[in-house]
Every structure is written in structure tokens, then in C-alpha cells.
């Protein structure tokens, strides 16, 4: 609210007295039609006008000579300087903008709405803003620039695009992605960003309810570039190369090798490893334990062991990864778009090629081809057809940090991948190395694991080919009413394979595992010596048909736009997978194995089947929807709109009658600046709008009966299928409903020096589905349930300012500022155990169960410091300082016993992009910020260290002697596990940090050559650019040097800084 007051103070101004009148008409260059809604402004006289439906305008001014600027959606702005008084009426011809739809037209996927008359909330970014970043995936570019959009790294380890905060608790949280007209089912990596003209995010109910149930998490509409009628051949070509650093492995909070070895030595002396060392099943030992054991057995001298151990102490496996695994990444992008049109034809075609080599030498290749044609067959009939073909190939590379495994998730900090000469070293893996060595020469395959070269023998590939065909027929029934039929066919074929060749450790280990001694004591193999190939294919076929009536009526006072339609959608995915043994890639041959009998493992003797990977599955989704949307504008000032939709689908187990979900919304808009009493001449454009929408959601997994799902393979014992319960019927479930209110003002000052919007939204969700922990005596530990009600509200401010505008220097700023706060209004869960609100390391933040607190809140156990005598962590139990960890973390303690910190989701976020243009140079600097939230950092867990061999750099700061408690909170090492003690420390308040930070997202510098200086070169523009992205954090609140967006788990890496260089030409 404060912002609005400041704005209105800034923008209030005085009235100029008018002496002259300038009038004229504005028409379009391509077809001569009069243009309505063109903004006519005179900066000098501070007056402005809009053209009417016949393209006419009247402007009053006091100056004898003025410069008039004409601007409007989809057209290049035009300057005209006139001496007054004028005799004749001004004739202004405006040129349509090429190949991009400007922000002032909003595409919902069903229709294009003039922003002027929109009642809903839309954020839109044009191609120019999008092209400031160089990535091969369009979605990666959005969070840095789109208002109200955020990537949530805070509530769960899986980063999630989020439009205006939370809408649901359970279920898929991905926004619905629309490519032109239809939902895009597929990998967003297949879309070439260079083919995109604009992206519109539908943020409120009025904007998104047209998409029904799938719009619950917001809708992102991607609009591709299109050709124009009557446009000469246009082309654009862009090429760029991006080089990225190696990732910063020092960010991994790895325990030092010397600390780790010291712990191993102590545990060895305490006999911790005896059961493994002495085991007849030969489990793997770490190199240090192995050396200690050899020395103990007298196989080597203890001096020799110490010498080797002291060498290992010098190793840091991060250096090994850095040296042998990670490389700088290189990405190349090329894209060519050609477009043109005649009076009744328009077309665009494009070719794109991307080739990325990642930090682990993994490769991604993409080829796009596109053709889109529109043909005006007659006055009444417009036909359009297009094809979009994409081929992508992925290939795996080396192993990243943590993926070279000794056993399970052990993290041994002193592993070595190569000797001094760079020759591959075998690392201990799977089974005891000495045992493996004892098998040498017995006829088994080499059982050593050489990570340095193993990646060359394990190749995962994924190839996909996607074809999208679309066609539409539009028939004008009479002026204003047309009917259209649109059809889109999408087919995606994906082949995935992982080939472990016979040199790979995986294949050798697997083959040896099923080897056996025959009666003559010779080694025989049950799994043939050779490669192992895992293959899977997935074919997705999507058909969309839509029939829609569009009605437009325009008169002086009335304007109606309405659509109504029906659509059907089918999507069928067929999956098929298999595994081949003894695979020979040259002859494409494989060998049979016995899947029917269990065989003993060569080392452990455990009986097991040879893995059969054969399986098939078909998934079919079908939707039918009916929808309508209408808007009526009176006097160009007052707009009312309404939208309704019903969906039905083949969700399994639902009766058809239960499948029709209603959605509706209504909106109002008032262009107050067009009122004759409107006083703010400094703010010639001001519109208020408001909307309200309702949706009811039945979760796909809420079904009317209990359903079961069959395993891919039948039981070996009976030959018949095996099934498990998939969903439980719950008669007590109620529909989830949500309501959203949006109130907004759109404004722009004269000459658009300041423009933007301020929006306030409020949402209320009732009976939200969530995963509820049940009394598991029922047999069900968690179940989809109506767990909570919530309300949320927030403000989205988008401000575009033109701070400096002169011939040489311009400085523009785009500021996105959003707030979001939510709270639990009802809570239905049967229990509020304290431990349920403390997320374990690496697990998602649970829903907080206290009315009035944020849906995702950070709670922690209260901390009473380390015990000065023992270094044990201390908490509180019934108000007393306590070390009864099982009780503190037990179920008698409720949420009220915890310390509450605040929201786990940023409550304030946004971005600021400054663009400075000086002569031909242009510099864009984008800064993102997230404020007002908390996160739990991870630290040392002794149970993980002792029994899981996972350390943490905090070990170095642990309490070691009385007095240490003054400067550390890291508990002492006890040489006995106590998982409750660890759970208490990792959930305690000393590990809660503020998440607030500001990030420099990207800097882009471009240089525009003036082609008019080069005679004979047929270029209309030539731009050179370089950019740097993921530069890093400028400011953070936490003192741990953690990047709050990348703080999950111990192995999380920050995204690498990338440097791009490229050019863009138009002709």
C-alpha cells in the first residue's frame, strides 16, 4: 500500500493550458486498416490521447512546435514533429513489429487479449528480455525476470517453479506449460528458446481458470515467433558459445582426510570393524582400515602402514574429482529463423542446433526444425498448418562427486583415482580388496574398479524425436464471429539405454557375482561374459482437438469479446523395457540367461535371481473440457469478464458423473484515466482491475474405490501376477477448493517513463489435500487427506522505469517485487508430534500444524548449549535442561515444545534488471533477491559417521575439551552411536539460519553495429553480445557462507558461472 501512495505522490502534476489542436488518423502499414488504441503523446506539452476505433485522435497543446510519439501494441513507435497550427489532418502510418508479439497482447492459449482490457493478472516477458540470458532451456531464464515467479529451493530438495506461492500442498506443483495453443507434454529441454517470441504467466484465477484443474499451480504460456501477412522476407540468425567453470567443489563440506583417518584409527582400535574384517562374506573395507588390519596381521609392518596412511592423509578426493572428472563446460547454440508473407500468406521457418558439453563431459545435442504457414484462403477462411520437429541426444559422461562408491553412501575423503603417472588406480569397492586379489588367476573377470576409466565403459544414452503437427481452420461466419477448429498431434519417441560393456565394473562385478565352481573346480559363468544392456523406450502420442467460437463486437461504446469451445485430449504413453546379457554391440547379439532359478552369489552365497528387467506399461489420460470466456467493455473504460470451465477425465476409479469439475472466475476493469474527471495528467494511463475465481479440485489419486497396481513381473512361484494396493478409498475425503482474489492497478506515466502494475492477491484454500500421518495400526502410515486450510496473500509490483532517456544514453530499470505470506487456517491432522515438524537432513519441510503460522515453517528443538563436562548437546524437557534425547525427540513432545523461527518459503522476492545503453553499447545487469525466510543447515551426524562413513567438515569444530562449549555448538564424539542425540542436534535451533540473500544472476553486454553505415551489406542489424550468468551471491544473511538455494544435503553443488559470447543478426 505504501508503494501506491508514493507513486501517486510522484505522479501527480499540473494541467497544461491548451492553445492548439492536432488531429489525425493512424493506420497500419500492411493493410491500411485504422488502428485503435494507439497512444499519442507529446512529451513537451505533457498531453496524451488514444486513437478511437476509426484510428482518429485529437491532441491539445500549447507549444508551437511539438514532437508527437505514437505507440501501440504490436507496432514500432513513431515520432512525428509538427509545426502548429497545421492545416490538414495528420496521416500517420505505423509499422507492425516484426516477429514478436509485444507485451501488450496477452496470450492465454485460447485467445489473445489486449492488455488494456484484461481483468486478470498476467506477467509477460518479451523476446528481448528473454534473450539477455543464454541457456538451452527456456524455463531456466524465467525466474530471473518474471514477476511473481520464483524457484522454490527452500521447502524441498527438488527445485520447483512456483507462481505466487503455494496453491496446493500435495500433488504435482509444476505450473502448466502451454506451447502456443496446447499443453506441452514433454521435456522442456526440447523447446528451442530462439523460437520463442514471448512468455506469459497467468497468475490469477481470471487469467488461468480457463485452463481448469491443471491451472492450479499457475500457467505459463509460451508463444512462438510467427510470420506476418504482407511482410518481406525477414531473417535472423544467432550463434553463441558458452563456457562454464568447473564447479566449486570446495563448497562441499567434506570432513578432512586427517580427521576422517583419525576416527577410523580410533574405531579400529576399539574393534568397530572386526565383524566386517572377520566376516566370511568379505565386505569391503576402507583403505585405512585395510592397512591397519594388514599391519595387525603382520602382513606389513606398522611403519609401512603408517607411511601409507600418512600419504592418504594428504589426499582430498575433491581434488581427484576436480582433476580427473570435472572439465569446463562448453555450450554452442545456432538458430536461424526466416519469415515472410504475402497479402494472403504468412510463414516462418526455423532451424536450431545446440550442442552442450557439460562439466562431466556429458553431452546434449538438439536439432530443431520448424515450419508454420498461415493462408488466408478467402475473406472467410484462414488455414494454418505447422510442423515442429526436434531431435535430442543425451550421452552420459564422467562420475560427479559422490558417485564413485566404495560401498553404499560412504564418503571416503582420501580416495585416489590415479597414481603419480596418471594411470588408473583401483579403488576398494563392493568386496574386500584382499579377497578380490586372492581370486586373481582363478578364471574370474578382473574384479577391480577403476573409476578413472570406468565411465568410458558405461554409457547412458537417451535419444528422443518429437514431432508436433498442428493445423487450424478459421471460418468467419460474419463480421465479428468466427469458428475455428484446431488440431494438434504430438508424438515423442524416446529411447533410453545404458550399456555396460564387458570392461565396465558393473558388468564384470555382475558376471563374477553369478560365477561358480563346477565339479572340476573350474570357474563357470551363469551370466555370460559380455556387455549388459538396459534398454527402455517410451512413446507418447498426444491428440488435441478443439472447436471454438470467437465473437468480437466493436462499436463506439461497446466492445464484446467472447469465446466458447470444447476440447478433447488424449495422451497415451507406452513404456517398454528390457535387459540383455552378453550383449555384443557390433553384432547386436545377446545371450540367454536363466531367469527362473535362484543361484548363489559367488562371494556371499546368497541365493538370487538373475535380474529380469522386462516390463511394459501403458498410461492413458483422456480429458474432455467445455469452456467459455467473455468480456464486455463499455465506453472503453469499464470491462467485466467471466470465465467458466468444466473438465472430465478418465481418472481411474472415478465415476463419470464425479469427474466434471467446475471452475469459474469473474473480473472487472476500470480505465479511470479515461474518465473526464481524471486529474492525474502526469499519469495518463491508469487502470484498476479486480478478479475473483473459484476452483474445486479432486486430486487424481482420490478415487472412489481401492485400487491395486500389478508388478511388472509375475510371481516366479505361481506364475501369476502380484499386486499391491495403490490407493485407498477414503469415504471421508472432501473436495479441495480454492478461491483467489486479485486487485490491481496498471499505470504508466507520460512517455512511459514509469509504468507498471501493483497487484494484491489473496487466496484461500479449504480442505487442502496433503499427506497425513495416520495411526499406522490402520495399515497405512500416510494417506492423502484433507489436512489443512490455508490462506495466503501477497503483493506483486512490476515497475518499469526509463531513468535516463536521451540520444546517447538510456537507462531503464525493471523492478519485480513480490511478497507472499501464507498461514494455516485449519489443521485436521490427528497428531502434532514435535518430531513431525523437524525435517530430517535432506528431507522436505513438513506442513506446520499450527493455525496462524506459515504452511511451511521452520521449527527447532530448543538448545541449552553443550554440556561443559562432556560436550553432549543439551535441550529442554518439561522446562528443565535435559540430555534425554529419546524423550526430547519422542512423540510425547508436541509442536508447542519447539522454537518457531518463521517461514521456510521466501516472504519477499523479486528481481531488478538495469539496462544501460550508451551509443551502440547496452549493458543488462540482473539481480535477484529472496528475503524473509529460514532454512535448516546440515551438520555433523555421528551415527552417519560411525556406521555410515559420512562425515562433515563441522567435525573439525567439535567439542573436545571443557571450555570448547564457549565457541562451538558441534557436539563431542562419543564412539557410540546415538541416533536420538544426532536427531536432536540436527533439529536444534543452532542449525537454523536465515535464508535472506541477494544474487547477481547475470550481466549481459551487447554491442549493436549500425548496419546503415555499411553500404551493400544487406543486414538490418548486427548485435554482438557477451554475458555472464550464475555469478553468485552479493549478500547473504547467514554467516556460514552457504548459498541458501543450494544447501540441501552434503553433496549439493552451486551452479557454475557461465560466460557466453555470441552474435545476432537480422536481415
Amino acid at each position, binding site marked *: 500500500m505504501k508503494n501506491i501512495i508514493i507513486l501517486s505522490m510522484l505522479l501527480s502534476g499540473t494541467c497544461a493550458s491548451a492553445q492548439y489542436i492536432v488531429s489525425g488518423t493512424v493506420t497500419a502499414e500492411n493493410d491500411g486498416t485504422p488502428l485503435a488504441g494507439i497512444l499519442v503523446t507529446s512529451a513537451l506539452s505533457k498531453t496524451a490521447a488514444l486513437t478511437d476505433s476509426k484510428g482518429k485522435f485529437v491532441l491539445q497543446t500549447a507549444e508551437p512546435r511539438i514532437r508527437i510519439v505514437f505507440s501501440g501494441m504490436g507496432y514500432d513507435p513513431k515520432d512525428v514533429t509538427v509545426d502548429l497550427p497545421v492545416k490538414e489532418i495528420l496521416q500517420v502510418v505505423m509499422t507492425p513489429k516484426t516477429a514478436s508479439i509485444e507485451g501488450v497482447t496477452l496470450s492465454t492459449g485460447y485467445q489473445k487479449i489486449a492488455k488494456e482490457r484484461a481483468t486478470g493478472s498476467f506477467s509477460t516477458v518479451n523476446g528481448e528480455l528473454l534473450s539477455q540470458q543464454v541457456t538451452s532451456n527456456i524455463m531456466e531464464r524465467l525466474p530471473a525476470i518474471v514477476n511473481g515467479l520464483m524457484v522454490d529451493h527452500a521447502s524441498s530438495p527438488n527445485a520447483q517453479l512456483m507462481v505466487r506461492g503455494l496453491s496446493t500442498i500435495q500433488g504435482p506443483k509444476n505450473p502448466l506449460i502451454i506451447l502456443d495453443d496446447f499443453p506441452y507434454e514433454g521435456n522442456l529441454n526440447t523447446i528451442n528458446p530462439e523460437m520463442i517470441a514471448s512468455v506469459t504467466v497467468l497468475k490469477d484465477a481470471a487469467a488461468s481458470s480457463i485452463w481448469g484443474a491443471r491451472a492450479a499451480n499457475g500457467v505459463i504460456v509460451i508463444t512462438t515467433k510467427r510470420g506476418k501477412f504482407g511482410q518481406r522476407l525477414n531473417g535472423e540468425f544467432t550463434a553463441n558459445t558458452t563456457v562454464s567453470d568447473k564447479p566449486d567443489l570446495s563448497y562441499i563440506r567434506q570432513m578432512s582426510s586427517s580427521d576422517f583417518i583419525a576416527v577410523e584409527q580410533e574405531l579400529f582400535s*576399539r*574393534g568397530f570393524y*572386526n*565383524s566386517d574384517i*572377520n566376516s*566370511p562374506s568379505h565386505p569391503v573395507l576402507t583403505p585405512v582400515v585395510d592397512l591397519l588390519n594388514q599391519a595387525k596381521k603382520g602382513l606389513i609392518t606398522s611403519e609401512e602402514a603408517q607411511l601409507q596412511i600418512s600419504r592418504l592423509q594428504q589426499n582430498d578426493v575433491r581434488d581427484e574429482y576436480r582433476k580427473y572428472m570435472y572439465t569446463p563446460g562448453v555450450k554452442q547454440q545456432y538458430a536461424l529463423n526466416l519469415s515472410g508473407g504475402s497479402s494472403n500468406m504468412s510463414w516462418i521457418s526455423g532451424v536450431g542446433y545446440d550442442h552442450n558439453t557439460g562439466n562431466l563431459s556429458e553431452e546434449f545435442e538438439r536439432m530443431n526444425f520448424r515450419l508454420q504457414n498461415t493462408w488466408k484462403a478467402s475473406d472467410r477462411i484462414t488455414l494454418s498448418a505447422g510442423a515442429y520437429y526436434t531431435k535430442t541426444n543425451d550421452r552420459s559422461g564422467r562420475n560427479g562427486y559422490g558417485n564413485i562408491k566404495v560401498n553404499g553412501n560412504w564418503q571416503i575423503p582420501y580416495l585416489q583415482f590415479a597414481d603419480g603417472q596418471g594411470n588408473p588406480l583401483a579403488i576398494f569397492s563392493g568386496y574386500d580388496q584382499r579377497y578380490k586379489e586372492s581370486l586373481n588367476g582363478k578364471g574370474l573377470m578382473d574384479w577391480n574398479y577403476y573409476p578413472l576409466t570406468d565411465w568410458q565403459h558405461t554409457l547412458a544414452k537417451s535419444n528422443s524425436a518429437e514431432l508436433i503437427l498442428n493445423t487450424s481452420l478459421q471460418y468467419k*461466419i460474419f463480421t465479428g464471429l468466427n*469458428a475455428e477448429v484446431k488440431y494438434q498431434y504430438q508424438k515423442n519417441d524416446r529411447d533410453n539405454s545404458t550399456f555396460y560393456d564387458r570392461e565396465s565394473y558393473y558388468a564384470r562385478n555382475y558376471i563374477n557375482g553369478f560365477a561358480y565352481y563346477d565339479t572340476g573346480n573350474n570357474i563357470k559363468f551363469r551370466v555370460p561374459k559380455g556387455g549388459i544392456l538396459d534398454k527402455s523406450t517410451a512413446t507418447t502420442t498426444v491428440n488435441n482437438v478443439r*472447436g471454438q*467460437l470467437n465473437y468480437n463486437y466493436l462499436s463506439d461504446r461497446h466492445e464484446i469479446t467472447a469465446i466458447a469451445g*470444447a476440447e*478433447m485430449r488424449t495422451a497415451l504413453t507406452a513404456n517398454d523395457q528390457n535387459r540383455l546379457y552378453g550383449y555384443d554391440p557390433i553384432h547386436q547379439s545377446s545371450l540367454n540367461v536363466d531367469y527362473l532359478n535362484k543361484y*548363489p552369489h559367488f562371494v*556371499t*552365497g*546368497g*541365493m*538370487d535371481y538373475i535380474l529380469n528387467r522386462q516390463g511394459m506399461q501403458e*498410461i*492413458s489420460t*483422456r480429458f*474432455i473440457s467445455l469452456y467459455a470466456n467473455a468480456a464486455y467493455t463499455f465506453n472503453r473504460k469499464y470491462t467485466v469478464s467471466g470465465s467458466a470451465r468444466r473438465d*472430465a477425465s*478418465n481418472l481411474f476409479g472415478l465415476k*463419470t458423473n464425479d*469427474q466434471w469439475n467446475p471452475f469459474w472466475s469473474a473480473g472487472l476493469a476500470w480505465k479511470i484515466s479515461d474518465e473526464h474527471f481524471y486529474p492525474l495528467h502526469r499519469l495518463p494511463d491508469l487502470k484498476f482491475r479486480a478478479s475473483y475465481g473459484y476452483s474445486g479440485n479432486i486430486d487424481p489419486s482420490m478415487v472412489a474405490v*481401492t*485400487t*491395486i497396481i*500389478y508388478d*511388472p513381473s509375475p*510371481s516366479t512361484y*505361481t506364475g*501369476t*501376477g*502380484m*499386486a*499391491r*494396493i*495403490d490407493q485407498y478409498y*477414503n*469415504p471421508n475425503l472432501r473436495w479441495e477448493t480454492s478461491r483467489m482474489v486479485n486487485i490491481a492497478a496498471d499505470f504508466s506515466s507520460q512517455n512511459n517513463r514509469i509504468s507498471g502494475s501493483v497487484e494484491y492477491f489473496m487466496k484461500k484454500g479449504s480442505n487442502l489435500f496433503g499427506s497425513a500421518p495416520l*495411526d499406522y*495400526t*490402520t*495399515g497405512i502410515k500416510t494417506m492423502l487427506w484433507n489436512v489443512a486450510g490455508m490462506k495466503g496473500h501477497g503483493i506483486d509490483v512490476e515497475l518499469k522505469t526509463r531513468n535516463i532517456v536521451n540520444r546517447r544514453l538510456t537507462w531503464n530499470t525493471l523492478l519485480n517485487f513480490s511478497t507472499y505470506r501464507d498461514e494455516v487456517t485449519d489443521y485436521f491432522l*490427528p*497428531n502434532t*508430534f514435535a518430531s513431525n515438524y523437524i525435517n530430517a537432513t535432506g528431507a522436505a519441510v513438513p506442513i506446520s500444524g499450527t493455525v496462524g503460522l506459515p504452511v511451511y515453517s521452520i521449527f527447532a528443538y530448543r538448545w541449552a548449549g553443550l554440556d561443559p563436562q562432556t560436550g553432549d548437546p543439551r535441550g529442554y524437557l518439561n522446562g528443565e535442561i535435559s540430555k534425554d534425547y*529419546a524423550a526430547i525427540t*519422542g*512423540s510425547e513432545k508436541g509442536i508447542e515444545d519447539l522454537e518457531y523461527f518463521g517461514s521456510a518459503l521466501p516472504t519477499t522476492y523479486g528481481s531488478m534488471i538495469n539496462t544501460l545503453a550508451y551509443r551502440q553499447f547496452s549493458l543488462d545487469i540482473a539481480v535477484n533477491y529472496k528475503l524473509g525466510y529460514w532454512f535448516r543447515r546440515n551438520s555433523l551426524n555421528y*551415527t552417519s559417521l*560411525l*556406521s*555410515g562413513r559420512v562425515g562433515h567438515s563441522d567435525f573439525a569444530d567439535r567439542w573436545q575439551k571443557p571450555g570448547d562449549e564457549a565457541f562451538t555448538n558441534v557436539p563431542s564424539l562419543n*564412539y*557410540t552411536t546415538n*541416533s536420538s*542425540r544426532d536427531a536432536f542436534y540436527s533439529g536444534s535451533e543452532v542449525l537454523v539460519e536465515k535464508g535472506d540473500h541477494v544474487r547477481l544472476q547475470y550481466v549481459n553486454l551487447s554491442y549493436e553495429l549500425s548496419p546503415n553505415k555499411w553500404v551493400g551489406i544487406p543486414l538490418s542489424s548486427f548485435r554482438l553480445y557477451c554475458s555472464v550468468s550464475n555469478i553468485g551471491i552479493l549478500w547473504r544473511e547467514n554467516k556460514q557462507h552457504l548459498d541458501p538455494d543450494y544447501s540441501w544435503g552434503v553433496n549439493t553443488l552451486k551452479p557454475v558461472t557461465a560466460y557466453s559470447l555470441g552474435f545476432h543478426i537480422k536481415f
Partner: protein
Amino acid sequence: MKNTIAFLILSTAVLSGCNRFLEEKSNSNLATPETLEDNQALLDRNFVLGLNTVSGEVSADDVYVTESDFNNMAVEAEKRLHTWQPDRVAAPEGNDWENTFRRINIFNTVIYNLDHYDIPGSDNVRGQALVFRASAYLEAAQVWCLAYSKADAGARKGLPLRLDPDMNIPSVRSTLQQTYDQILSDLHLAAQLLPPSQISVIRPSKVTALGFLARAYLYMGDYEKALFYGNQALAIHAGLLDYNALNAGASYPITPMNTEVLLPTSMAYSGFLATNQAKIPAALYNSYDDNDLRKVIFFRKNAQGEVLFKGNYSGSSTRSSCMATDEIFLTVAESYAQTNDVPKAMSMLNQLLVKRWKTGKFTNYTAGTKDQALQMIRNERRKELLFRGVRWADLKRYNREGAGLTHTKVLNGVTYTLPPNDLRYAIAIPEDVIQMTGMPQNDR
């Protein structure tokens, strides 16, 4: 306008075809469990779950872990369980209570489906579900309840008897009498419904039902009935493995699904029962005669000479808790002894042991008195049914009958003691369940 009408008519026509359009199954692997096959498929998967309880075996006296292994155990609740703590012995991330009732829910769902969908010819599937449910409750009663005795079972706490899959029904503890009544009535009904054998032992047959009846009555101390049902079971199937035919050198010599197995089930994982950590007390190992093949088939020593168990009836490192004929032989033997038929008791025992000893080396055991016979049979029961999930129940009932067994463990200088008939023989129900349901905790 005409076109508008035409469009509307078209849309209506399309929508009337909707129902068929929307009836397409969304996933080819999904089904509503309306057929006999579907419900059989739900039961058949029970075998792969491996969720039978470990609490009894972790608490009993057949295994120990070294102090250093104890200090290295990942789950605090299990350490408490092993040292007979009165509370907080169930790990919140997964425990026996959860695993037991998860299985019971599947069986209840099947029984419900058979009625709800009125599936014809369902006797066999229903019988299987009843055996599974009763066996789960019987096993659970050994973990969370005190030993059954007819005198006070009506006053002692039993289990919450969930017989309907509806999760909205609150959990309420029954009496111990009601718990056993339910187990017995399920088993009796199942024995009537089931055929003498099935296409695979993963499906309980009539023999399985009778075997569990014998086990249940033995636990209850009703030796006449235990004898009766044990003999009925053996009358249908009395196959025993000859251990002379097994390869003692193999890592896991006992083949899964062998002739003795009546229902293969396996325990959940526990660090205390893990292959390398679970050690067998020397006294127990030494109690096997050198001519007793079990000494080499059940055990191997690690490099330090500690004794590890490899006689799993799963044929792998998985700890099996199967119902098998060897147990029924021992149950019948014990019941004969209890009902004062010592010769028959010893005969049953000898029939089993002759298959366990080296051919020609076994001389029949004899006993002069009932007590001698009982002592011998109980010793052999422990030696035969090692790691089979019955020891905890046996300790409980031996104490009930006055055996006066006291157990102690010493770890990190602390001595833990479990006196005879201690209330901690009924292991604590997970505290979160108690909190959520308001059910009373076991007495302490």
C-alpha cells in the same frame, strides 16, 4: 447463428460419446480388485515383502552382538530394544508395528473385497487371507503381549483387532482372550476352506492353517489341542529334509521352499540380526554334537572364531521366520510330553533328529520322565528353530510355566537384566501410536 446451433449440436453429440471415451483405463497395470485373480495377486505379493517382526529375535537370547558393534548400531530404538528398555524401542522411520499392521491391512482388504464384490468361488483365497491374518496376529501377540494364560487372559491387554480395511475405524485394544479367540476362529475357518495343498507354498494350505493352530495352542498352553492339530497337519504332510543331502560347505546350505516349508516368510532387516554382526553364544554352539550336521549347516565361524548363523530357510542372508514341518514335529513332541505320553514324545523328536545327524551316528534319545522329555525337547526346539522367530514366545511361555529364566546382558559396563515374567516381555507399543490412538501402553 445457424452455425452456432450446428456447433452446439456437434458438441452435444461429442459429449454423449464421452462416457465411453472416459472409461479407458488410465494405467494398464491398474485394477479395482474385483476378481479372484486380483485378490490372489495381493496375497501372493506378501511373500516378497519380508516384513515379519524382528523385535522378539532382537530381544531374545539366541544372538548377541559385540560391544563395538553395539556402539556402531545406526538405530537408537533397536539398541534400546536389545537392552530391554521399557519404552521408545520402535524407530519412528519404520518398525515392527507398522510392518505387521501393514500386512494385516492387505489381508483385511482381500477379505473385504471378496464380500464387497461378492466374488464367487472365493473359499481358497479367503482361507489364505485368514491364515495370513491370524499368523500375523499370533506373531504380534508374542511381541506386544504377555504370555497367554487362560486364568487371566480376559483381563490382560491384547492387540487392537482390526478386521476391516476402513482406516476411519479407531484402534482399540482388545483383551488377550479376544485376541487369541480371533486368531483361533480365523484359523479354524481357514482350515475348513483351504485345500490340502496349493500350487506353491507361498499360498497357505490346510496344512499351514493346521500348523498355525498347533503353534497357537502350544503358545496358549493348550497341549491337547496343539497335539491334535499338529498331528492333523503331519497327517497331510510330514516331509523332512535329510541334512545329509545338503551341501554343508555352501554359504547358505538350506534351499528355500524345501519340503519342510509350509509358509515362507522372512523378517525385516535389523542390524542386530545382520549376517556379520549377529553372533551365536558359544554355549549354544557347543551344545550341538559334532555328529549333528546342524553344527556345520547352521553355522560358520568368522576369522576371529566367532559363530555366525547361515541356516536360514530363505537360502540367503535373509532371516526366515517360516512355518515348517520341523516346528510341528517339535510341537507335537512337546505336546505329547506335556500330556504325559513320553514314548510318543521321544519318538517324534527322534524322527526329526535322525534327519539332522550324520547317517548312522544318531542314537535315539530316551527319557524316563515327563520333565526329562520336556527338557530335551525344549533344548532341541531351541537348537532346531534358531532364528525362526519363535524363541521370544518360547521364553515367555516357559517362564509362565515356572522355568524361572533370567537373562542378563553386559554392554559398556552396564548390566541389563530381564527377570522371569517381567512386564517387559510385552514390548512397548510405539509411543506415537499410543499418542494418536489413546490406546493404553503395556504396563510397566
